[in-house]
C-alpha cells in the first residue's frame, strides 16, 4: 500500500502546486502509515526531480517520455493508472488544476476508485475514509465518505500549503509503456502567459471590476500588482467587455482562486463573484458604495474612490518594501 502523488510539470519545471501536493501526500502517508511515492511524467531532469525531496518525498517514479508534453487526457490517465498499480497505491493524489480535473475522473474509472475532487485538509477519518470539500461553489462545505477501497483525490490549490521537510530522494526510472498512438491530442499552437505571476500560483491577487471604468485605467492596478508580486484578476463583466483577458475572470463561471490576500477594486461583490474568491484568506475591498455586498465578504475595506486609494496603496507598499 502507498500514496501516489502525480506531480505536474510544465516544460520540465514542477508547478508550484506540485510541492503543495507533495507536502500533502507526505502528511497523508504518515497518517495512513504507508510510504508516499511521487510520479513525474515528461522530461524533468534530476536536479528538478530532487526538489521534491525538499518536501519530504523519498521515492520518485519518473517516466521521461516526451509525448506527455501534449497533455493528452487519456494517455496521462493511463500512465498514472499503470504507475498506481506498480506502486500498489490505494490513494492517488492529483492537483485540482486544469490537467488534474481532466485526468482524475478517467483514472478513477480505470482503478475502480472513489473520486473526490477539490478536497481541502487531511482526512477526518481513515475508516470510513472521510474528507471535506466545498460545495455549491464555496457556499457550503460537504463531508464526503469514500466507500471504495481505492481513492482518487484532487486537492484544492492553496488549501494545504507546501511544507519544507528535506529528505534524500531516490529516483526510479519508470516506463508506462505508452506508444505514439496513445497520444491523440495534436498540438497546433501554445500561448503561454510569460513574465507574469500565474493566477493559480499567486499568493496575492489584485482584481478590478466595472468600477475601474475602462481598460485605460488599469495601469495603477498593474503597478500595485507588480510591486506586490501579485497576479491580476477581474470580474466577469470586465472580461466580457474585453477590458481584460478571459484568463483573468474569477468567480463561479471563471477561475476559483484561494490566495492569501485578495484586493477587490470597484467590484460590487455579486454572489457569483464571491463564489470564486471567498476562500481567500484575507479580502480587501475598495468601493465607493458603503452598501456594496463585497464589504460583507471583506476583512478590510475602504469606502472610497479606487482612483484615490490605489495611488496611496502603491506609496505605502513602496515604503514597506524599502
Amino acid at each position, binding site marked *: 500500500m502507498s500514496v501516489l502523488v502525480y506531480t505536474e510539470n510544465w516544460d520540465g519545471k514542477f508547478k508550484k502546486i506540485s510541492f503543495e501536493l507533495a507536502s500533502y501526500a507526505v502528511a497523508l502517508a504518515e497518517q495512513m502509515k504507508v510510504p508516499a511515492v511521487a510520479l513525474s511524467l515528461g522530461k524533468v531532469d534530476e536536479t528538478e526531480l530532487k526538489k521534491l525531496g525538499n518536501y519530504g518525498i523519498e521515492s520518485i517514479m519518473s517516466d521521461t517520455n516526451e509525448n506527455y508534453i501534449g497533455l493528452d487526457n487519456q494517455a496521462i490517465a493511463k500512465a498514472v493508472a499503470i504507475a498506481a498499480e506498480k506502486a500498489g497505491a490505494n490513494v492517488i493524489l492529483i492537483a485540482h488544476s486544469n490537467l488534474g480535473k481532466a485526468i482524475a475522473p478517467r483514472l478513477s474509472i480505470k482503478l475502480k476508485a472513489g473520486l473526490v475532487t477539490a478536497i481541502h485538509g487531511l482526512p477526518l477519518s481513515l475508516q470510513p475514509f472521510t474528507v471535506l470539500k466545498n460545495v455549491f461553489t464555496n457556499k457550503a462545505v460537504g463531508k464526503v*465518505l469514500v466507500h471504495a477501497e481505492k481513492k482518487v483525490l484532487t486537492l484544492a490549490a492553496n488549501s494545504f500549503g507546501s511544507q519544507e521537510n528535506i529528505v534524500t530522494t531516490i529516483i526510479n526510472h519508470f516506463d508506462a509503456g505508452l506508444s505514439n498512438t496513445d497520444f491523440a491530442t495534436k498540438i497546433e499552437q501554445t500561448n503561454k502567459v510569460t513574465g507574469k505571476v500565474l493566477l493559480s500560483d499567486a499568493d496575492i491577487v489584485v482584481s478590478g471590476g466595472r468600477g475601474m471604468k475602462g481598460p485605460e485605467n488599469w495601469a495603477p492596478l498593474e503597478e500595485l500588482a507588480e510591486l506586490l508580486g501579485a497576479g491580476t484578476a477581474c470580474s466577469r463583466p470586465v472580461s466580457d467587455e474585453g477590458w481584460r483577458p478571459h484568463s483573468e475572470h474569477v468567480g463561479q463561471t471563471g477561475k476559483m482562486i484561494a490566495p492569501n490576500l485578495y484586493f477587490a477594486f470597484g467590484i460590487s461583490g455579486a454572489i457569483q463573484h464571491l463564489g470564486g474568491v471567498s476562500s481567500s484568506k484575507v479580502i480587501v475591498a475598495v468601493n465607493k458604495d458603503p452598501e456594496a455586498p463585497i464589504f460583507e465578504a471583506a*476583512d478590510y475595506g475602504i469606502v472610497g474612490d479606487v482612483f484615490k486609494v490605489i495611488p496611496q496603496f502603491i506609496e505605502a507598499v513602496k515604503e514597506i518594501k524599502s
Partner: protein
Amino acid sequence: MKILVLIGNVPDTTTKIKFNSEKTALDASGVQWIINPWDELALTRAMELKENSAGAIEMVVVATVGRQETEATLRKALAIGADKAIRIDTEPKDGFYVASQLAPVAGGYDLIFAGIEASDYNGAAVGGMLAELLGIHSISSVSGLQLEGGQITINREIDGGSQTVKMTTPLMAIVQKGIAKEPRIPAMRGIMMARSKPLEVIPAIEVDVLTSFESFSLPPAKAACKKVPEDQAKTLIYMLRDEAKVL
C-alpha cells in the same frame, strides 16, 4: 453526425443555500432550478454547430439523470433547440453513479459535450468518467470548438496559458467559459415546439455508489469588515503587514 449534450439540473446561482435539519441534504424549498451554466453554454455551441453544418449534423440530443422534476430543465433545453431529450429516472448519487447511468445511452455519438463541473456539488467528474466508460478520447477545459469534416479544432485552457489542438471524433469535449459567448434564451416559437419534441424516460440500472455526502455545513460567519477612511488608505497596507501578516 450526432451530438449529445449532458445536462445538469442545479439551483439558480443566486440561491441562498440551506440544508435540512439533519444537515444531510439540500433544503430544496423555494429553490429555482436552472440548466448548469456550462451545460447551457455547451448546448448553445451545439446548436450553432448544427445550424452551420448544412445538414451534416442531423441531431442534438440532451440527456440528464434525475427524477421527474428535472423535466422542466429538459424542456428548456428542447426550447433552446435540442431535437430530443433523454431522462434516466433516478436520483443522481455521485459522479460515478451518473456517468454509469449515462453510458448505456451515450454510445454512437460523434461528439459529446459535458460541463467542466456542476455548480451544485462541484464534482468535475461526469464527463471524464463517461469518456473512460465509453472508451473514447476526452479533452477538458475546452473554451472553443470548430468542426470541419471529421476534424475538430479545439481551444483549451492549460495551466498558465491556452492551446489550439486538433482531435478526431468520437470525442468528449468538457467545456468551460468561452465555448459560446452567451447562453441562448429560448424564443416563444422554441418553447411551443419543445412541447411536442420527444422526451424519453429510461429506467435506471443498478450501480454501486462509491462516494456519498455524510453531512453539510455552512462556513462560519465572517467577522465584521475593518474599515479605514479613504484619506488614510496607507494605514490599511500597514495593517495587512502588522496585523493580518499577509504582506
